[in-house]
């Protein structure tokens, strides 16, 4: 079993596997999203404090979860790349970063759209939004560093170091932002004080989170295939692919 | 004592050399030949442990240098393309720093003798920024004239930018090193006549 998995560590072997996996994950993502949105809009009860506007939580919270989860996954691939010295690990973390950044961006936007009808302002400096903002900077820094180094091997290794430094610091940053937020009272304006969870709300968020996860896998694999083609463009099998197409 | 096993390296997507097997013993001189861009510097840097080889390994007294780490580097003297001298420090200060960096203490007298061996004793107090290219090279090469533990010398184009007189001095320093049982690997695209008990040659860029 172990030997079998390592066979796919070569980009050439992983490329067709990824291609076969994408439609499945896309379908799962669509199905889960439909189920989640149904629960979000039709099943979950109206919140007596915030009205209908609170429903944005079904996008905001899963996006936040995904943004943090993907950063950790990215760091894991980075660690694997350093430990095992495989090219695919670096490509995988390059593929993950934009999706992670997009989810961070969605978290911030949905937070703003939630804030306006609820609190009257598009932006509040609450702990979660501020932490997400810093996380967005970490993603952008990673993408920028990889983009600035022309040699792909060096870019992968540098990016891996940065991702690992980031993943160690993210809990510390979150803690410090939390600390900062509780110090400067204004905590009445806080999105983290979500309405108390009815079971259906939790179900809705879980479904949306799973949908986001499936989507992330599909999107990452699609991006990964492009990265593989680009990086391995001089290899025989890529040239064969292109002439066959 | 120095050995490469199936050493391979690529740069910028280009395979420079592969399946390279070389062995060098005490008193051995290995000359790496090849045109510009053929991978001479890369090979030297692989031997120094600076560049990670694409495949294969380098062994010192049978142990992989990747595992030896700092222990290997205390036996090593590496001079790369740029004469590693700081413009703001004097020639003497630069040489003194190189010694301290390699963990040896030397006296002022030894320092003077080393500079004299390269013919730049009177430049000792001059900041390196005011030297010509050739004088800078001599200042860097003065390390070869110092007593030190380094048994393996890796020199990248050591005779570049030197006049005939300086070339002669460097050649005799190298010969003395080899006669004392040291090993020497150098890259050069010119012919280099250094008296050596064993002479090996590797040509890259085939």
């Amino acid at each position: 079993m172990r030997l079998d998995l390592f066979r796919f560590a070569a980009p050439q072997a992983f490329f067709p596997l990824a291609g076969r996996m994408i439609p499945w994950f896309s379908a799962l993502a669509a199905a889960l999203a439909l189920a989640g949105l149904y629960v979000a809009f039709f099943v979950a009860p109206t919140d007596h404090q915030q009205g209908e506007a609170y429903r944005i939580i079904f996008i905001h919270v899963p996006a936040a979860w995904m943004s943090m989860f993907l950063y950790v996954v990215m760091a894991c691939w980075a660690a694997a790349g350093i430990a095992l010295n495989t090219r695919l690990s670096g490509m995988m973390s390059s593929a993950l970063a934009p999706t992670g950044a997009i989810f961070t961006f969605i978290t911030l936007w949905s937070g703003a759209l939630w804030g306006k009808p609820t609190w009257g302002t598009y932006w509040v400096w609450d702990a979660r939004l501020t932490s997400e903002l810093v996380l967005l900077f970490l993603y952008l820094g990673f993408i920028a560093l990889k983009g600035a180094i022309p040699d792909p091997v060096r870019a992968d290794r540098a990016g891996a170091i940065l991702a690992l430094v980031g993943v160690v610091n993210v809990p510390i940053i979150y803690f410090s932002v939390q600390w900062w937020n509780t110090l400067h009272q204004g905590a009445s304006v806080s999105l983290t004080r979500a309405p108390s969870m009815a079971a259906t709300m939790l179900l809705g968020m879980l479904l949306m989170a799973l949908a986001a996860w499936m989507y992330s896998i599909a999107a990452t694999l699609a991006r990964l295939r492009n990265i593989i083609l680009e990086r391995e463009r001089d290899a025989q099998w890529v040239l064969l692919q292109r002439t066959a197409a | 004592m120095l050995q490469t096993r199936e050493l391979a390296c690529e740069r910028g997507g280009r395979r420079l050399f592969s399946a390279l097997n070389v062995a060098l013993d005490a008193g051995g001189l290995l000359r790496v030949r090849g045109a510009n861009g053929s991978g001479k510097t890369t090979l030297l840097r692989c031997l120094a442990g600076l560049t990670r080889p694409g495949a294969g390994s380098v062994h010192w007294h049978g142990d992989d240098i990747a595992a030896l780490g700092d222990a290997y580097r205390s036996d090593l003297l590496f001079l790369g393309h740029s004469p590693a001298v700081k413009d703001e420090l004097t020639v003497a200060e630069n040489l003194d720093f190189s010694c301290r960096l390699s963990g040896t203490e030397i006296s002022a007298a030894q320092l003077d003798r080393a500079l004299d061996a390269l013919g730049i004793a009177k430049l000792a107090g001059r900041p390196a920024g005011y030297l010509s290219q050739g004088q800078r090279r001599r200042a860097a090469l003065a390390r070869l004239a110092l007593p030190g533990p380094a048994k393996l010398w890796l020199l990248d184009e050591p005779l570049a930018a030197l006049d005939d007189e300086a070339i002669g001095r460097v050649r005799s320093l190298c010969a003395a090193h080899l006669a004392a049982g040291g090993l020497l690997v150098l890259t050069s695209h010119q012919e280099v006549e250094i008296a050596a008990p064993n002479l090996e040659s590797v040509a890259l860029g085939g």
Partner: protein
Amino acid sequence: MSGFSAILLRDLRVALRRKGDALNVLVFFVVVSSLFPLGVGPEPNQLRAMAAGVVWIAALLAAVLSLPRLFAADYADGTLEQMLVGPQPLVVVVLAKSAAHWLLTGLPLALAAPVIGLQYDLPAGAQGVLLASLLIGTPVLSLLGAAGAALTLGVRGGGALLGLLVLPLFVPVLVFGAGAVGASLTGIDPSAHLSLLGAFLAVSSLVGPWAACAALRVALD
């Protein structure tokens, strides 16, 4: 440890002979701090409340300004390569250079901060806390900053890219450092903030040098 002191002294000697660089950073720090009142108005209470944040942000910017030079000069003239092939453990090299950077940047900033504090009318107690927070926090800037400098070594867009990489990592320093002064201004004991800052310094002294060593090996590969 002779390697550590050799590198530290060499860096100090080189910097003192260049004079301009370290002084520029200090002047930049003072100029930036002095610009804020021009931007937000001279109202004393407002300035007093802002003072810690302003000083700390100016310190972060000054650090980012000085960090690209940490390895760049040695990289360009080949002396960095010599440090990597020397028998000294690379972490000793990184620690020595970070220490030199702090002595030339962080320490002068910390000592100049009371002057800025006067401009912002900080009371004596808060001044002391500001100084303490800078003395504990600026080494973090040198340690984590060294990792950033090593990652962007020889990369185009170096300075701005380096800022993008390290400033998010400096958020805890800013929060705890400025927060300590804020606490003392409202009569709360700042020792919790300063302890957290100290803890972060401890973490940075492990993470920063490790990352810098790994990044230097990548850069000189």
